[in-house]
């Protein structure tokens, strides 16, 4: 009996020794500069940008997993492909030692809630009272938890508008939709060098990231760059095919004069503050409550917005105020409004845009049809559901703006 136990013990020991001998081992134990063991680094060669460098942060604070494991399946348990997704961001980008104040701010921002779009749409369609008020429930985060679609306007929103918000899951949807959304990385991600094997996070948001969404409705992202989505004919024919350039979703565009700020090298984030784009901690219904930059903030002002915040690009050089662009650090002189034409008492009600915006795309007559016999992708739930929406228009023009009044200010009015 004793011999049997001894033999079993020796066998067990041998098995353990062989298994231990075969176990994959790292040649060294990688440790970040903060002293954290990050076994991920023994396999992974990816190199993010400097501020999130592998040596300082490692992989697991962003991407989860088990940094103490070397076996792939154990190390990858709980792995997060996109740490910037708003569903996980409280524990990743928003961790106490990183950007703890941001997740709450961003989730309240209009780019996350889409409250303005939802509220306006439901109001236009007569589903909620005409008199606008703040409605907590007009929020993509609420729609994400809805078990069933409760209204026509919301069905329309889910299918035709539902890809332009920060809750949209990056890479989940096909074609050009795969590039959209992703929480923080919807804006902050740019391709990295091939050898880095990791995209780069940046505060210098390129205009292309903004225009992935801001290209419909008012089409400001296109107009700003000098592009006009025309009637869609695609002509002239060049070498037998449509000659017009087109967007990733197939819409044809033609070149028009770009905004002077674009020509000068300014991108969206040069004017629009972090508090406008990522939220200032307050929940708003409409964009005009959130937007605080005005033309006069820089032109004639000292760079202070209507909410009292400073535009970082406005600097003093000698006795002169200049604007320094974020992407290229170009130094541009700042001109004050013309003392006679702009400040004349007969023009006291005019907004700057009323005169200085010389063209605006205008879509007259928006026609919408829902066919229950077909299905369409609900971009909020990710499910193909019954009912397909189609949009048409009566006609579209690139034309001088129509003016009207907002309160006591003369502003630009457009159909839509």
């Amino acid at each position, binding site marked *: 009996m004793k011999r049997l136990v001894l033999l079993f013990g020796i066998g067990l020991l041998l098995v353990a020794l062989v298994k231990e001998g075969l176990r994959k081992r790292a040649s060294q134990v990688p440790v970040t500069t903060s002293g954290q063991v990050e076994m991920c680094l023994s396999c992974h060669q990816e190199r993010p940008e400097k501020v999130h460098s592998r040596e300082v942060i490692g992989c697991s604070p962003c991407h989860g997993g088990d940094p103490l494991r070397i076996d792939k399946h154990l190390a990858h348990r709980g792995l997060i492909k996109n740490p910037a997704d708003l569903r996980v961001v409280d524990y990743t980008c928003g961790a106490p030692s990183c950007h703890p104040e941001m997740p709450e701010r961003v989730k309240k921002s209009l780019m996350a809630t889409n409250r303005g779009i939802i509220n306006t749409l439901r109001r236009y369609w007569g589903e909620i009272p005409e008199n606008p008020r703040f409605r907590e429930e007009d929020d993509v985060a609420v729609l994400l938890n809805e078990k069933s679609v409760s209204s026509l306007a919301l069905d329309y929103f889910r299918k035709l508008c539902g890809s332009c918000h920060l809750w949209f899951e990056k890479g989940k949807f096909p074609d050009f939709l795969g590039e959209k959304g992703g929480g923080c990385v919807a804006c902050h991600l740019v391709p990295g060098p091939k050898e880095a094997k990791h995209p780069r996070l940046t505060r210098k948001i390129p205009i292309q990231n903004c225009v992935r969404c801001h290209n419909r409705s008012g089409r400001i992202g296109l107009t700003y760059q000098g592009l006009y989505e025309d009637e869609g004919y695609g002509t002239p024919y060049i070498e037998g095919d449509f000659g017009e350039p087109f967007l990733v979703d197939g819409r044809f565009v033609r070149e028009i004069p770009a905004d002077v700020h674009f020509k000068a090298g300014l991108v969206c984030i040069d004017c629009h503050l972090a508090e406008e784009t990522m939220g200032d901690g307050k929940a708003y219904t409409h964009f005009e409550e959130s937007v605080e930059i005005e033309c006069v903030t820089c032109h004639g002002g000292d760079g202070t917005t209507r909410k009292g915040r400073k535009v970082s690009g406005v600097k003093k050089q000698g006795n002169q105020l200049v604007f320094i662009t974020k992407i290229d650090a170009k130094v541009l002189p700042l001109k004050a409004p013309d003392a006679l034409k702009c400040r004349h008492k007969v023009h006291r009600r005019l907004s700057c845009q009323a005169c200085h915006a010389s063209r605006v795309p205008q879509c007259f007559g928006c026609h919408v049809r829902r066919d229950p016999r077909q299905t369409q992708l609900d971009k909020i739930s990710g499910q193909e559901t019954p009912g397909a929406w189609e949009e048409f228009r009566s006609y579209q023009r690139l034309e001088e703006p*129509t003016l009207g009044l907002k309160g006591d200010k003369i502003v630009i009015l457009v159909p839509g």
Partner: protein
Amino acid sequence: MSILSREGELKKKFQRLTWSFMDPHSTSKARTCKDCHTSAKTLGLGYGILSYQGDGRWLFRSAEKEKSSLLEIDFPLSALTNLRGQRYVYLSRKDLRPFNPEEIKRILRVGLCLDCHSDFSDPVMRNWNPQKICPVFKE
């Protein structure tokens, strides 16, 4: 908006035309004075031709049909309002409105002067006085 039935027939429909406000992000040198002070489109009347009838009266002939049975509207699609102050469309905010008839007339009256007094380089425009009567053009 048209909602079809499972048989492909019209089950429900509603119609509403709404205008909103925006900054088009197309900043450039300012529009000319005539661009605003003589343009029916800018003033919210839509595409068409404006002609002065004398005694402060204006006539607007729309380039579009006044009524469209196809669109089921009784106003030109590009118009917000008319010279009588009738508002054709909804506006997206409570504090938005088209110009009223008095404002339209006031703006157009300046346009009558622009052939001779083209811009603020002219002292008549620089010192604009709405009470002043033109000694040349008979209003």
